[in-house]
């Protein structure tokens, strides 16, 4: 297990380096101009001399490989550079925002996993029953519903019609301090929307896995031995039915990141996803590269996590190598 983790970590290094180069290459090839993005509306009245000076100051007149190498060497030494779009060091941007994104994503993930598993097990108990049919058709509908649409719907219903939850932001708009209570109430809608948009996959996997497991010999054996239905369901069927879901946890990470992108935007959540969009459209090389490294690392970690969980849950699988 430790060896697998170490080997994965080692192989992640070239992947991450390649990804950063890819980001620089794609950004350089993109039709967007970092100088225009930096200058914003002021660029529309600036003289060419002013714009050329900006280009030199921002270092974007350097060739692609030089820029990438400069970034990489200073990043290795702990200096992630300055974000041109945020006008502050990249490390500060990430430090300020990553926590809020993690909070949102973790809550959403927990909602999706816990609710998905519970509903999946209940549905699998009586396949074709009323609950199964209701939840399954709801799940298929949800799969097709974009997260931002769910978000707008939630704002309309809970913030506008019922007026019980705030419509956006990290805290009330009038407040300038961050308190536990405020964040908790403001987190409910975005986390629920993001979680529910991920829920169908977990639900459908668990439902299928548990249904299949209930037909397998060990479960039938357990039933024959007269074990309680509850023990059979949770102890036997769920355990083997969970296996495909563990893989799913890892593979949903990228989806969670893109989902968070839309949800953070709809709910004005000050997370890292909104910064990613800005970095990309403004060709903010330093910030974009750092965020891509983070996202790639998250995906690699997600895969590692699901493999580890799978190995733990089913000793027959073991750890590669």
């Amino acid at each position: 297990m430790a060896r697998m983790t170490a080997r994965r970590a080692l192989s992640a290094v070239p992947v991450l380096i390649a990804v950063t180069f890819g980001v620089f290459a794609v950004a350089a090839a993109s039709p967007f101009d970092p100088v225009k993005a930096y200058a914003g509306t002021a660029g529309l009245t600036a003289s060419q001399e002013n714009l050329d000076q900006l280009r030199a100051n921002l270092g974007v007149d350097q060739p692609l490989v030089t820029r990438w190498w400069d970034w990489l060497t200073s990043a290795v030494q702990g200096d992630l550079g300055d974000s041109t779009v945020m006008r502050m060091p990249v490390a500060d941007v990430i430090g300020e925002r990553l926590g809020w994104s993690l909070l949102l994503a973790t809550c959403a993930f927990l909602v999706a996993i816990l609710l998905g598993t519970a509903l999946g097990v209940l549905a699998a108990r009586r396949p074709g029953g009323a609950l199964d049919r209701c939840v399954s058709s709801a799940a298929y509908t949800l799969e097709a519903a974009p997260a931002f649409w769910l978000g707008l719907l939630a704002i309309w219903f809970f913030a506008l019609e019922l007026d019980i939850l705030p419509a956006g932001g990290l805290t009330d708009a009038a407040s300038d301090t961050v308190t536990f209570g405020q964040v908790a109430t403001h987190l409910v809608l975005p986390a629920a929307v993001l979680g529910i948009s991920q829920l169908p996959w977990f639900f459908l996997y668990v439902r299928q896995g548990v249904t299949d497991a209930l037909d397998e010999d060990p479960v039938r054996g357990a039933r024959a031995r007269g074990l309680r239905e509850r023990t059979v369901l949770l102890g036997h069927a769920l355990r083997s039915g969970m296996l495909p879901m563990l893989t799913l946890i890892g593979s949903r990470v990228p989806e969670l990141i893109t989902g968070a992108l839309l949800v953070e935007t709809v709910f004005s959540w000050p997370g890292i996803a909104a910064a990613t969009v800005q970095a990309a459209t403004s060709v903010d090389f330093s910030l974009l590269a750092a965020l891509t490294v983070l996202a790639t690392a998250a995906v690699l970690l997600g895969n590692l996590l699901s493999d580890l969980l799978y190995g733990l849950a089913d000793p027959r699988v073991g750890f590669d190598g």
Partner: protein
Amino acid sequence: MRARSVRGGVALALATVLSITAAACSNPGSSDKGSASADSAVVGIAYEPDSLSPLLGYGKDGNSKIFDGLLALDGNMELKPALATALPDVADDGLTYTYKLRQGVKFSDGEPFGAKDVVFTYRTILDKKTNNPSRTELDAVKDVEAVGDDTVVFTLAYPYAPFARRTVLPIAPEHVAGRQDVNSGSFTTRPIGTGPYVLTKWSKGEKLSFRANPGYWGGAPKVKRFTMAIIKDDDVRATRLRSGDLDGAILPPNLAEGFEGGSGLSTYTAKTYDYRTVTLPTHNKVAGDRAVRRALDIAVDREAMVDAILNGAGKPAYGPVPTDSEWFAEGTERAHDLDAAKKFLDEAGWKPGKDGVRTKDGVRAAFPLWYLTGDKLRQEHALAYASDARKAGIDITTEAGTWEVIQPRMKQDAVLAGGGSPADPDFDQYTLLKSDLAGDGFNNMARYDNKAVDAAVEAGRRSGDPAARKAAYDTVQRELAKDPGYTFLTHIDHVYVVGSRFGALTTQVEPHDHGLASGPWWNVEKWTPEGADK
């Protein structure tokens, strides 16, 4: 079951994760009720500043809340003293501007403000190492010097009549901003100024929170807490205004309409210099022909655009100066007259072809018109313009693109452009019309070349005599009527909805950029909300 699970899941997740993340960010001991109290105001705006450092261009047109300029603009856009005690003394040759500074003013960190801060601010902006995209606006400045601690003298490279209107730009403290990287230091996001409000928090992409500066030299504001929530989406902004989350917001006219007659909210329509225009590049064989330009100028139905595109919130534009401005040249309005437009084209030899599109010497009267992708207002203007042109026999194809796509084509192709600065006619017209700025960045996009206009905009900037300046800009507008290098379409009103409890509010005449410094909250420090301490 389902609801309980959600709540249970959220509560569990909160308990585990929030304790870790929030601990680092929260401010223990604060007792925030969060609800809007009488002396707080929350407004929704659509744009977020990139930086709050005046050294990088923030607040350059005045009105920055955190900072003060040497001068400021009042509700009638007249200059008034701010950090200076009076309007500047201008030497007879127009080359030296002397400002006496207000004494006893302190920055919000308690340090005194002085002449060294003024010199530092201007010298840093003029420094090429500073990433200030608006530096060109201070081109006229040759040098700035402190004389003692209470006097600052600007020396100009050439006489520049509107220079005093540039000195509304905010003054940064040397003792803070001078000790860090100008381009990315903490001052860019956590500014310190002399203004009526102190920034307490900037949560990027979410909001800017301000607290009244109790020691403000102009008197402590009655609105103690002021928040600008950044909500890019128009519909979400309207929704949050309706839900009571916001006390006010800028809205597109069609969404603002829904609030009219609503209880507790008032609608304000700000007059602007914000124009939409079509560039007619001189290097295009069709658009460069004076007959075509004149025909297009009267073939467009500006009134219809105001009614259909702007819901009536705007007015027809015949040049960069709006028709209700004191700088407007009476008699330069052009009525919509399709028959006259056709006559112009007939006389110039543009004969209708088989498909209804005119040709002359084998050249088809057709050219592309670009507009910025995603800008619905510009798109609608472009489509209306093309449709009006088609009726006169000119085939304009509209195309959408980003500035990266549009800029290389500006020499040949028409662009649906926007702009406008109310502070002084020079700010707009010099860069828009001067022939030697043709194709310099985004200056003079149409590469307009007219000797009489060149002479007039030059005279307008150099003369210190208001009557001579008025005559110069009248000449510009008359020349633009005879040789329209641009088809000006509309001036756009900016519409705001704000809670009535703040009393009757005013708006300034607004520039092309809007939402942050302008709006009814341009003078929020003077508001007296109902129920606030008098």
